[in-house]
């Protein structure tokens, strides 16, 4: 396949997903609204677990569509060395990057909320509320079906254009694309690190709801629940963050990643959750409840801020300052106008 025919096949694939997404994303929004109502209305109390399970089913159907899309994309997105014409490999875009992040977080929250047992009834409204906010965010801001992985397409379509032009431009674009393929998209780290973090985020969301219940009811049983979810989240968070270190050293050589905005916020989140787990050792001491509760709430707020930082504060980790015009549609328009 030549670059233009690859582009055409990808364009067709993206349009197929977008056609489904045009129906599915409004459906997601509607499902989020229904879930929110079910979390609030007392009449639905007996059925809340089913509402959340229903949302999980909707999200899993969407994830299956995304998996199909990524599988097809892997088949199409190939990288060739322009100097030899040899195939260096396929690009395996992970299912939890860019526009898909909020969707995966929502999926994790719904899955964990569906299987949680302890204090299930009391926790469900809060977990449903958080899940509905995440689902609405995924549908309105992420748009993983109608605008899938825009940063990847920005780079890959640019690479295809350069390849069709040939010369030094092609070599430069190839080096950039091959670097991204090896150190980012196809790196084992990118297939392990984000899901671990989203698993921990899901656990921390439930821990946060239990902490709020502890503050409201002033009973330590909710603290035990909050602690159990926090420790479950702390493990994948710690492991997921640690494995980032050697990867960053290799992939971001010469880039400004150490003490960058996202790294700082992630570190702060980890430090705060470490602080919560240490402080609760003295839970029965007078006044420590307030500190543990305050640290628990603060930690979750910092978690949310850490997520937002990716899109606001520039750095190696960041999607901030990505030129808005560098989307698939814009590149498509450029290529179509310029011919091939």
């Amino acid at each position, binding site marked *: 396949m030549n670059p233009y025919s690859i582009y055409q096949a990808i364009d067709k694939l993206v349009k197929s997903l977008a056609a489904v997404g045009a129906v599915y994303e409004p459906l997601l929004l509607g499902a989020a609204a229904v879930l929110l109502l079910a979390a609030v209305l007392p009449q639905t109390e007996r059925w809340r677990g089913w509402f959340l399970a229903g949302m999980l089913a909707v999200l899993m159907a969407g994830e299956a569509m995304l998996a199909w899309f990524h599988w097809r994309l892997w088949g199409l997105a190939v990288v060739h060395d322009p100097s030899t014409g040899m195939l260096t490999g396929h690009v395996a875009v992970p299912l939890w990057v860019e526009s898909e992040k909020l969707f995966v977080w929502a999926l994790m929250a719904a899955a964990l909320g569906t299987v949680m047992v302890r204090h299930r009834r009391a926790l469900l409204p809060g977990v449903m509320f958080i899940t509905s906010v995440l689902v609405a965010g995924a549908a309105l801001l992420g748009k993983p079906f109608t605008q899938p992985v825009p940063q990847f397409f920005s780079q890959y379509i640019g690479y295809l254009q350069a390849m069709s032009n040939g010369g030094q431009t092609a070599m430069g674009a190839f080096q950039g694309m091959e670097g991204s393929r090896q150190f980012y998209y196809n790196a084992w780290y990118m297939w392990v690190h984000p899901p671990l973090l989203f698993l921990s985020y899901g656990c921390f969301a439930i821990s946060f709801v239990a902490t709020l219940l502890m503050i409201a009811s002033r009973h330590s049983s909710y603290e035990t629940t909050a602690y159990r979810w926090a420790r479950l989240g702390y493990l994948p968070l710690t492991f997921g963050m640690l494995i980032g270190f*050697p990867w960053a050293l290799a992939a971001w050589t010469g880039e400004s990643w150490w003490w960058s905005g996202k790294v700082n916020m992630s570190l702060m989140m980890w430090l*705060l959750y470490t602080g919560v787990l240490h402080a609760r050792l003295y839970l029965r001491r007078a006044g420590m409840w307030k500190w543990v509760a305050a640290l628990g709430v603060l930690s979750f707020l910092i978690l949310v801020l850490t997520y937002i930082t990716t899109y606001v504060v520039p750095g190696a980790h960041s999607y901030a300052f990505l030129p808005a015009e560098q989307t698939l549609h814009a590149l498509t328009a450029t290529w179509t106008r310029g011919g091939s």
Partner: protein
Amino acid sequence: MQSTDVRRRNWDFVLTLITVALLASLGVQSFAGTIYVWWAQATIPNWEQTSYTGYIALMNLVAAPQLVALVAVMGLCVPKRIFSRKLLVAVSIAMVGVGVAAWLARGSVATGVSVYLGLAGLIQLAVVLLTAAGVAGPSYLTEGRLTKLGSGLLHLGFIIFGIVVAALQHSAFMLPVFWTATVLMTVGTAMSFYASRLAVRHVEPAEHPIAF
């Protein structure tokens, strides 16, 4: 005997408070760093090219004493039944002194921190071995041998990870030492969280109303 227990509990509590305060302090530094990066990127032209190295050096310099203090608190916390408190404080101060001397001798903060962490790692390794052997020496805030061993392992892993960051980033030993630290921290954390599931006797925590 009772007053000794009360004093020990208060000492443990103070050390825990200092640990949480240091974690919070490092957190505040991280937050301030984020705000600064955001501001600098938006207002200083070519900030990454012109001022990023200076920013990193300053952040490392501010973080180094906090990291040393955190590890010092760890060193004071666990082996206090083996040694007297006075001796532990003296050993900790001497270790910091050796670290500072290394810093001044080589002119590098990273060297000083690495030397200090190396010494702290040796003490922590001894604590882990004593705990594993079941010697009634090390003192922990948690109960159960597996929990204590997990706590010792994760703290040892934390110190080794500190050494990787401070000294081994460009070394051929970086990856094996890093994975050792990662396994110690992950397995140690899992053991200290879930040791009760492996224990023969299970003790459920008592739940009670909270007096705010």
